[in-house]
């Protein structure tokens, strides 16, 4: 509907108002009470960033930046982490008999994503990497842009805002965007949701299953979260393209990575670059010696884990990846350069990376650290129990592996070139499959919870 209106109307200002209205309506559709929050965040960041730009004094600039940073983090902390920290404090021996007040708060949709977007904007203005936005409507669109507000990608203002100056939509962007949207829909509805039905049941009753089923569920979750999140990102990027905006790529076959650094250059790319630019580099990056580099990596990845959710499992997951990155650094610096690896060694590197990432997802998915440890013991200590090898799950695993192999050997057809004769047929088939073979229960997007 928004696309049709935008195509029909030529005036740029009117188009922007329609886009902003559509974004606010989309957000209010979920819960209109939090529309006020996103408006407040927009106004605060817009005006304080302008104030930063117009202030000559370095001290005042820094104070304003710290102020807006604290406000943004406090809002995120209040809605997302307050209860988590209260419960964590209550579990400490000294405070175990204390009844600390928790808040009955709903997590506002997309808050982790739009808060990170406005923080990156304020930081870029403060460090003079970009000039502040002077049109409130443009900035409001950037914050609330509906295709990406729920679960990203975490688009940078420096790439998004200039597109609003020369805003145009066309049939060619419509076709390209539709292709991405359809692929994303297929990944989410046909693949991820079906995997979710298997994985969710396993995790609800993991104690009764045997080692083989535990391994299957573990690998299935790796693919579920990939298909779910990459599918959503593809839909978001596709929808943005339909509306005339180019959004940064967020996934690039992450399970082809041969080391953990490469994995984070392929997985949730916008988040990993955000963490790199606004956490890792300000901490010192790799400029202060190797041991400080390792500490910075661990801190950055732990924060990355905490961003995903208010639970110790996410913190542990981030920590695991931080330690893996450190190990990768040490290995690379002292032992072997992967560019010199033989084909067999490359396979070993790939297998080790995939295995680590898959095992780390167990902590990410589990309801508690104790549950994760139980599942690990089921994985590595042979356990008898119920065997559940769901044929469709096995088929999906094989199919996804096959697609990855084709991508690795650079078979062009995998990318569905826009001008090839078979692409449209395949896209129609994907629509049919998503429409016909969808599971009876819709599974929410995994990253919607973050």
């Amino acid at each position, binding site marked *: 509907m928004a696309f049709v209106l935008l195509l029909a109307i030529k005036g740029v200002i009117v188009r922007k108002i329609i886009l902003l209205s559509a974004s606010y309506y989309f957000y209010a559709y979920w819960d*209109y009470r939090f529309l006020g929050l996103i408006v407040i965040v927009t106004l605060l960041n817009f005006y304080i960033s302008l104030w930063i730009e117009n202030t000559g004094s370095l001290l005042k600039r820094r104070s304003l930046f710290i102020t807006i940073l604290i406000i943004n983090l406090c809002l995120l902390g209040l809605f997302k982490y307050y209860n988590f920290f209260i419960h964590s404090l209550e579990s400490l021996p000294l405070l175990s008999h204390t009844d600390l007040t928790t808040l*009955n708060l709903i997590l506002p949709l997309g808050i982790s994503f739009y808060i990170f977007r406005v923080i990156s904007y304020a930081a870029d203005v403060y460090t003079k990497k970009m000039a502040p936005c002077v049109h409130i409507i443009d900035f409001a669109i950037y914050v609330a842009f509906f295709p990406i507000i729920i679960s990203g990608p975490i688009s940078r203002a420096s790439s998004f805002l200039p597109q609003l100056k020369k805003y145009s939509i066309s049939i060619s962007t419509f076709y390209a965007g539709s292709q991405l949207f359809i692929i994303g829909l297929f990944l989410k509805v046909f693949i991820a949701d079906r995997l979710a039905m298997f994985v969710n049941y396993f995790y609800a*009753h993991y104690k*009764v299953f045997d080692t083989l089923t535990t391994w299957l569920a573990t690998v299935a979750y790796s693919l579920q979260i990939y298909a779910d999140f990459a599918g959503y990102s593809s839909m978001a990027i596709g929808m943005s393209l339909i509306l005339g905006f180019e959004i940064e790529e967020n996934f690039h076959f992450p399970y082809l990575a041969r080391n953990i650094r490469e994995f984070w250059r392929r997985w949730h790319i916008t988040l990993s670059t955000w963490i790199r630019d606004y956490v890792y580099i300000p901490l010192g990056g790799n400029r202060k010696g190797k041991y400080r580099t390792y500490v910075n990596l661990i801190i950055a990845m732990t924060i990355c884990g905490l961003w995903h959710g208010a639970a110790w499992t996410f913190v542990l997951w981030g920590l695991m990846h931080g330690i893996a990155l450190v190990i990768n650094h040490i290995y690379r610096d002292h032992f072997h350069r992967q560019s010199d690896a033989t084909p067999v060694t490359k396979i070993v590197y790939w297998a080790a990376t995939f295995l680590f990432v898959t095992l780390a997802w167990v902590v990410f998915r589990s309801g508690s650290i104790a549950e994760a440890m139980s599942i690990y013991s089921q994985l590595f200590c042979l356990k008898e129990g*119920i065997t559940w090898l769901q044929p469709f799950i096995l088929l999906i695993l094989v199919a996804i592996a096959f697609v990855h192999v084709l991508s690795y050997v650079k078979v062009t057809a995998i990318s569905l070139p826009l001008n090839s004769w078979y692409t449209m*047929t395949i896209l129609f088939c994907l629509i*049919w*499959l998503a*429409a*016909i073979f969808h599971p009876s229960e819709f599974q929410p997007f995994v990253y919607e919870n973050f």
Partner: protein
Amino acid sequence: MPTLNDVMKRISHIFISLCCSIIFIWAAGYFFLSSLTSYEFEHNLHKYIHTSNTIHKNRSEGWATTRVGKYNINAVPDITKIREPKIAVWGDSYVEAWQVNDDQKMPQVITSLLHQKEIDLFCFGIGSSGDSVADYYFDMPAYEQLAQPVVAHCIIITNFTDISPDQTSDQKNGVFRSNPLRLEYIASRPSFQNIKRILNEWGLYFVWEPIRALMKTQIHLIPSIRQSSYQQSASEDPATGADIEGAWAFLLSKFKQQTEVPIIFVYCPAIPMIHNNELVLKNPDSNTARLFNQICAAYDIGFIDVSTRFLDYYKQTGKFPRGFSNTRPGSGHFNAAGHRIVAEAITAYIEMTRGS
């Protein structure tokens, strides 16, 4: 600026792609989708039943093909043509048994087992998804007439809500109500039958799926409020012991009035089952089963509890009598092993009580 030729090429490309995709999804749907359930009005029974002389494919749970016979009896083309004394097995989707092939359904297995023991009895099943005890009550006289001679009725129940009043009617004809206790007949008519019949004939199952999904979708245009996880749903008041005993006594007395031949309730609980991250081997409703058994005995009605057989099967094989590889283990409908276990239980009971 695209020329007319370019536009025509583009439209042709879209049209051909769409046609190719329709052929693909038709083929995929034909193999991987379940048949649509179509109904026809049966004048002898005065109700809508599954369309006779059709084939039903089930793919969503299990992978099986069923031949639907006349009078809503699966795997038997025409019950009126069979002269042997018969046992009628009543049930809902558990007896309908779309999930297993015809020779694996419990009535057919019972017949096979009885014939192996040289007992000249023929067993047939009457079941539709959503049927209740009230439906069996109202249908018994008609089937006794059609399938005569009927020498016994077996009623399959999987839990005690199956025989409790005020359950969801699921658009079926018979309902069991309380306050006052009564069995009512409300004629119902299934919807969209003409469309389903045509789609079934041409194997166009894929057309129905998005229609069904759209009908279930509720769209609201006005922004709303998200419910927090702190809000709890109201719990239903369970029936008191005295209420349910009275209801069962009423039900059984009505069944005794409806037929002169023996009635046997066959209780097939969902054990073993996976619940709360544990394997449950003890039936939580075992006391209720004992109570119901006592009430059955008071009305000279047979009662078979298959729990022990189910548990023995699990202990011997590590497998469940319910569930399929494409569904959750231990849940859903009986698989072939489950049907066989129930059939063996019924056969053993018949063998034991045959003289009486």
